[in-house]
């Protein structure tokens, strides 16, 4: 992730280690700096979004299921809130996080502003309500149907949480992919807390915003097409893996 010559892609100096990539032929990225920059940007987008989705899933799966299984005071309000947060504007999350992570803010001593970690935090906040809401909805249906059965032989509700998640595993894939879709496509939060720093926090969406502002509309659109392509590939791969895992699972049973 070294700083390397970038937009408008002026070729100054060479970096043999990176520039072997110049031989990678892509239709609209012709010189080596473009290609290696491009790979940095795509790699960062995917790694930040995957990380955020993974953390969000780790939090949201148990919470979503528990919300369906454990009755408690204020549960209804909690569920309403989670669903309301589906529409959380990324730019508001970005701004709140910016103020919190700023050196003059409450978490300033962590020195996280303008780092990939800050972007992961922002995207996690955006993904949690989506995954939680979807998991909760699916868990509610499963609990209504299998709840008595799952607790009949003296098993506790806590023990039912993983069981419910197992029953709704097909819906979990959709929930997690919806979370990933939210994270990889948003620009408002990452540009604020990441700062769109070349080689460090520049993602596909912030690059598209930048290229549009430089009047490189065709390049921006091409990168947009790549973003869509990558999203589709990842969704398809996850679906395929999930399908195989399910088949393998049923064979064992």
């Amino acid at each position, binding site marked *: 992730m070294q700083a390397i010559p970038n937009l*408008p892609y002026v070729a100054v*100096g060479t970096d043999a280690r990176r520039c072997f990539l110049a031989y990678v032929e892509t239709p609209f990225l012709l010189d080596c700096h473009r290609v290696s920059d491009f790979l940095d940007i795509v790699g960062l987008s995917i790694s930040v979004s995957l*990380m955020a989705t993974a953390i969000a899933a780790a939090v949201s799966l148990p919470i979503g299921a528990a919300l369906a299984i454990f009755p408690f005071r204020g549960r209804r309000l909690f569920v309403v809130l989670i669903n309301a947060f589906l529409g959380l504007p990324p730019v508001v999350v970005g701004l709140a996080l910016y103020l919190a992570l*700023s050196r003059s803010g409450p978490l300033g001593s962590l020195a996280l502003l303008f780092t990939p970690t800050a972007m992961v935090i922002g995207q996690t906040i955006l993904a949690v309500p989506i995954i939680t809401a979807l998991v909760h909805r699916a868990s509610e249906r499963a609990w209504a149907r299998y709840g008595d059965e799952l607790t009949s032989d003296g098993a506790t509700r806590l023990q039912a949480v993983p069981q419910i998640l197992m029953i709704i595993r097909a819906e979990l894939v959709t929930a997690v992919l919806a979370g990933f879709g939210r994270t990889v496509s948003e620009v408002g939060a990452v540009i604020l807390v990441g*700062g769109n*720093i070349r080689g460090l926090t520049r993602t596909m969406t912030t690059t598209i915003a*930048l290229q549009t502002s*430089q*009047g490189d509309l065709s390049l921006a659109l091409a990168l947009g097409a790549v973003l869509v392509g990558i999203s589709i590939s990842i969704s398809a791969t*996850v679906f395929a893996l999930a399908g195989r895992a399910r088949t393998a699972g049923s064979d064992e049973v």
Partner: protein
Amino acid sequence: MIRFRNALALIAVFAATNASSAAEQSIVLASTTSVEASGLLATILPQFTTKTGITVNVVAQGTGKAIDTARRGDADLLLVHDPEAEQQFMNEGHGSTRRQIAWNDFIIVGPSADPAHVKGGNDSVAALKAIATSQAPFVSRGDKSGTNAAELRLWKIAGQTPDLLIKEKWYRDIGGGMGQALNAASAMDAYTLSDRGTWLSFNNKGSLIVAIDGDPRLLNRYDVIELDPQKHAGAKLAAAKVFADWLVSPEGQQAIGAYQVSGQKLFNPSAGSPK
């Protein structure tokens, strides 16, 4: 369970890639969109990093926001172009040293049809008066950037009040960066004030042409400002100073002066004789 293990392995690989890049020394430079979008920093920074091992992470914002970022303590160094806002920043005690590194000029660009009949002149104030009289569309950045501040100063000299201007239909405050303003001007056949660097490297000019240039009032100065060690104890001031010193050194000045876009020099180094 297979997919969970796969996912974990994938995440571990990405985490390792990210961690290895965070080890080197780096500073955050809050800067204006014009030095970033013009490609200047992308060209000169690798030379500096090769020499010193210090990575400069550029957060490109309008001057107003960049100064605010530094004021909050979220940057280690400032590179901006609004003399009045910079002076205020210094007066507040946030800055320790302020040095000019380069200058270029602002230009007024407009549609080639030139509804206000200002093309070819060099009097920016007369041109703005003509634009106001003919009510030809004018795009304003409206984002407290250095260019926005320069534009408002010129309107004042032209006898207009910024508060009243925003009520005019032909005056379009877009609240965006230079590129967005040029995109908007191109789409609406409007005039706008641009820095020359962004204009030359902008790729969606459409029918826009340079209407006015060469007015001494269109001077655009870029200053590097180091932060005050007492107010900004948490900032990486030593590494920031190395970069600031490099920018005004003969080597840095040479690198700035050598940068060209389509055969034209974008920035005139001026550390030795500030304008």
